[in-house]
């Protein structure tokens, strides 16, 4: 009998998140054992519904009532640090508890490296982009955009006079369209033109035609 193991690989962005968390933990001198305890909790309950959301509730509860289970005054400080770090880097994964588990698992391993392998003063926090930002960046790099260029877009959402367009299946931009909004329906494919670009060449603004 063979046992298949599901692929457990992190994406490039998730690696960056794990690294950013590890760096921050070392910079803030947070006890990695407390992170391990929260991991034990997540591992125990990862399969249930809304496990990711429950994990963030759990971190908040640790901050609020951590003095009940802590052995020193420092423990609650560690919980505060964990809560703020996870809120900063893992909110995008709130609905994907197994991915939080993987990212934090690697973060605990990386903490060892940054804690013992690099002098603390030399570690700098890094900024990481979200999965969505990474996808947009990939699309931008694969295409060249110009102001005035016409492209196809899908109407993703309409809220009063605001229309959200989705182009190339990834980039979503919301634009005030007082004249067009009432004529469009969600899911409709329309033509738009690029009204403005950012400095890096990505699209800043589009307008319906």
């Amino acid at each position, binding site marked *: 009998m063979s046992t298949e193991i599901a692929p457990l690989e992190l994406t490039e962005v998730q690696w960056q998140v794990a690294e950013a968390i590890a760096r921050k933990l070392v910079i803030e001198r947070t006890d990695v054992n407390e992170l391990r305890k929260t991991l*034990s909790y997540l591992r*125990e309950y990862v399969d249930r519904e809304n496990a990711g959301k429950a994990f963030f509730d759990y971190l908040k*509860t640790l901050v609020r009532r951590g003095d*009940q289970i802590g052995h020193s005054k420092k423990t609650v400080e560690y919980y505060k640090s964990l809560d703020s770090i996870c809120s900063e880097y893992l909110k995008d994964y709130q609905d994907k508890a197994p991915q939080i588990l993987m990212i934090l698992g690697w973060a605990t391993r990386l903490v060892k490296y940054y804690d013992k392998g690099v002098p603390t003063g030399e570690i700098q926090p890094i900024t990481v982009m979200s999965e969505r930002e990474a996808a947009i960046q990939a699309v931008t790099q694969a295409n060249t955009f110009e102001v005035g260029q016409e492209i196809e877009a899908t109407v993703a959402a309409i809220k009063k006079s605001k229309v959200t367009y989705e182009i190339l299946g990834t980039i979503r931009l919301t634009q005030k369209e007082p004249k067009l909004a009432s004529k469009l329906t969600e899911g409709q494919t329309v033509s738009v033109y690029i009204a403005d670009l950012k400095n890096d060449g990505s699209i800043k603004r589009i307008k319906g035609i």
Partner: protein
Amino acid sequence: MSKSKPIKKSSQSQKPSPPKKRVGAKLGASHQPNPIPDTQDKPYGLVPLTTQGIDRQIPVGQDKFKHDRFSGKLHLALTVQTASFVASGVVAMGRDVDLKADLIKTAVHQKNQLIIPGSSLKGVVRSTYEALTRSCLCKTKAKRDEIPKGHGECKIQKDKIEVCPACRVFGAMGWQGLVAFPDAVGQKVSTSVGFMPSLYRPRTENPMYQNDGKVSGRKFYYHAVKAVNAGEQRGIPVQQAGQAYVFKTALQFKNLTEAELGTLLVILGQDSDYPMALKVGGGKPIGMGSMVVTVEALEKPGNLKSRYTHYVLPDSDHLTDEPLKRFMQTAIVAAHQTLIEEYQLKELARILAWPTQRPAPEGMY
């Protein structure tokens, strides 16, 4: 019951009278027992190491069933006497385990049925077995130079396999033992919240542990009438098994001698001359974890060959009530005659005596 932690004794402790020599016992260099360390009002007592020398013999192993030995199953029920808690290592929110508490240290459980892992139970029984017999001092954190000469861990060598009584039954590094402990499963889906105060770490630097720089005994915690409950404000909430909660398990054994089986029964509190209870899980110093064992049945195939051709044992091989009592009595007598160190047993029975009138320490201990 505590794992055997190495204890070195106080230089000011009283010297007890020496034990009676047993006919046919192998004698070591010294026949004087170690003095009992004075633990004063501590919640634990110390069982001195044997001075008769370690009784190393060739173990029987499991390659085939021996007809002159006992194999089978002991069906056990463990009834909780004082609140018990075997930690899972996970701190959860109270709502995760259907209990009212913001945060709670959870016990090992499956669908809210509490469990005592077989490994925990095996540790409890082994440490007691070691203390009662001429066994080595191996499950210890003591440094090598603190182990008294001759008490070091049994080593399995290619050309010479000789191990102590505990290693013969429970196994040694590189040698499988003769008993298997499956998990003990709670009998109902019912747990409660208890509050455990922060405990103090062992002060191994205390002079009471010293006996010329050597470990002199094994440490066991006393039972108490009732566990300390520090209250919500002062305690750590724990998911506990309350009084009268019952765990059940079936201890499997192969190729045990009558005396080895008898010693296990003594440890399980079946010797009416030495009524004892087990001490399992966390919070031992504050009176938690006392459990009384009932042997509900013994499966012992009379004909090992026919055991493999029949799924169900004949009634004569399934002992309960009076036949079970008679069998246990005979095995216990054999244990006293050939395996148990009576002096160590008296000390252990004094510490683990059940029932008890002893209160648990409320403050510093």
